[in-house]
């Protein structure tokens, strides 16, 4: 092993981690605001992948423009899903929300399998790359990393600078108090869920620009998202990004030292250990 390999692995881990982070951010936002573990997260990631695939292959829309359309689509779908599947059970014990979101996942995957089968798809699309010795950094990966950062920054600006963003934060801290301020908490919850879903779909679309996928691909990212959220602290959007980068680095750098197939053992063992020892995440204060 030499320095070049190590540097290459760190860069690729970092870029991959940013995508992982974006995939997990929606999950974490929804958890933070609604205290709901969204088991339809993976299904919506897959939906994002197929949306960009349809936009690109059928309508010839440039993927990074398509992402904006998908953001809107995700927002609408998320809000519909909230009122259709979650609104009635939002105050029920977590089992109800777990199963409600899982049933949404079944519905999406069910129709998805019917329409798309489980054939893998890929976007034949390239932005070139940067080369230095044996280090190759792909344009699409860099773009994906940059877009992930942009979306995270935008999300933070939205949460801290805008009126609905502040309302989301208020609702996440204390729903009753938010109601006292005249905030329609149902609308805010729906909005949060919509944003969470929109981010999941955008993440799916971005992943589709770098990796092949099937309708079932979302499941893997959903599980990874759990690990990421726990690493970075459940409920904290920025934590998701940090957790994502941590996971990306673990996957790319640790792989150099151990048998690759042991990485998931490490990841999930870490998930359980952190939950038990430090539930606020690696970064969390308390």
């Amino acid at each position, binding site marked *: 092993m030499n320095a070049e*390999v190590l540097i290459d692995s760190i860069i690729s*881990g970092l870029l991959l981690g940013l995508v992982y982070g974006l995939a997990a951010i929606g999950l974490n936002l929804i958890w933070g605001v609604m205290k709901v573990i969204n088991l339809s997260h993976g299904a919506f990631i897959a939906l994002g992948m197929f949306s960009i695939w349809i936009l690109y292959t059928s309508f010839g829309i440039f993927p990074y423009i398509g992402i904006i359309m998908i953001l809107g689509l995700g927002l609408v779908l998320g809000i519909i899903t909230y009122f259709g599947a979650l609104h009635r059970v939002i105050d029920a014990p977590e089992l109800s929300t777990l199963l409600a979101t899982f049933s949404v996942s079944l519905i999406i995957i069910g129709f998805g399998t019917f329409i798309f089968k489980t*054939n893998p798809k*890929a976007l*034949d699309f390239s932005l070139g*790359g940067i080369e230095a010795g044996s280090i190759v950094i792909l344009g699409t990966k860099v773009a994906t990393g940059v877009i992930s950062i942009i979306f995270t920054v935008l999300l933070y600006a939205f949460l801290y600078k805008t009126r609905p963003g502040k309302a989301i934060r208020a609702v996440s801290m204390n729903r009753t108090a938010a109601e006292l301020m005249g905030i329609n908490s149902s609308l805010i919850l729906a909005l949060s869920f919509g944003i969470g879903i929109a981010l999941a779909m955008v993440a799916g679309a971005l992943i589709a620009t770098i990796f092949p996928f099937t309708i079932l*691909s979302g499941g893997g990212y959903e599980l990874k998202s759990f690990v990421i959220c726990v690493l970075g602290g459940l409920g904290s959007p920025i934590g998701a990004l940090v957790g994502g980068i941590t996971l990306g680095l673990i996957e790319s750098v640790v792989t150099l030292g151990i048998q690759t197939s042991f990485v998931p053992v490490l990841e999930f063992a870490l998930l359980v250990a952190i939950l038990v020892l430090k539930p606020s995440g690696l970064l969390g204060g308390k």
Partner: protein
Amino acid sequence: MKKILVVLLLLSVLLVGCAQQTVQPSATSTPTTQTTPSATSTPSTSAAEKILIGFSESKTGKFNAESKEQTNGFLLWMENVNAEGGIYVKDLGKKVKVSYTSYDDESSGERVQQIYAKLISEDKADFLISPYSSGLTASAAIIAEQYGKVMVATGAASDSIFNKGYQHVFQLYTPSSRYLTSAVDLLQTKFPDAKKVAIVYENSKFAKSVAQATKSYAEEKGLEVVLYEAYEPGTTDFTSFINKIQAANPDAIIGGGHFADGETFAKQIFEKKVKIKLLSLLVAPAVPEFAEIGDAALYVTGPSQWEPQAKYTKEAAQKMGVEFFGPTVEEFVKEYKAKYGYEPGYHAAGGYAAGLILQKAIEDAGTLDSEKVREALENMKVMTFFGYLEFEKGEYYGRQIGHDMVVIQWQESDGQLKKEVVWPETGASSQVIAYDEKY
């Protein structure tokens, strides 16, 4: 709201009613296709009206795509046979038409035994075809064996099913132990300077057994295996893995797993400009969608059970001194295209061949009796559009020993990516090109 509740409740009560019915012998779920009203007595003793073939297919879940192709192939065969009046059964002195019954196994092992038990004891299937994939076939085999029903296994390449003492399971596919050995042969013949191989595989049942066999074969042939490592199913980023491979500096990379990981792996090897003579991957290159990755697919090779360009001809059969049975490759491809609108892949060919081989065995045996048909299969040596087929009689009873893999390579002609058969040399449609020629 109240109304919905009531409706749901009624629905539930109705379902409870249905559920209780399971307990009564009469009512069970109906098969997906309507078959003969009832075949109460065993077919071998009565003048059978129809030959019923039973199998489970994966209409949902991860095997959905492959299984669908397999069924398509089978249905085409059934259509063809029935168009000619059916299979000629000598004992009955007439042709008997074929029908089938199938259920969805959801790509999961849980239901397979239930389905095969139902096919045998309730639907009275005369013969069985395996589910798609080795794992599901292994579960089904126990039931088939227990009731002495012949099961033709297609879409199941594992060797390990066949040293478990089964006497009624016959494999169509080249077993996994020989999946990538042709790639090793190809490498040694065409690139004699290449000495170092990296064998990397997906950590799953199928890929692992292929990799194990390939490793010992490569070492036996005097190649140096410089890296032998697995990656997790569902891996999407191979960057570090490829770094590891590059550090070992191989002349060829052989391995892979299933489609998605294979496609990703190939794409990322290209992106990292890995300099090797041969890249040979399981499953992915043989699938038409592999072309979606564009330039990355160029010069990638992979084993395939069957290709439309395959040269399994009557002349070849004559040369070997065996019978040629069923349609020619061209006929099969043409008919399949006409019926489904696209070129068949090997899963579809396997599905057709499963029916074909049963037909041949029944005609040879001249009866529908399971044991006689089994003997016919045991002694069968036949060339078909799918290739030469023969089954092992020894420790691995029923394992395929006749059929060979072809190696395909994605090459360019007129700016279009096209699959070419590059191995075995006798059936090759084009010469193999070194992988690093593309850079």
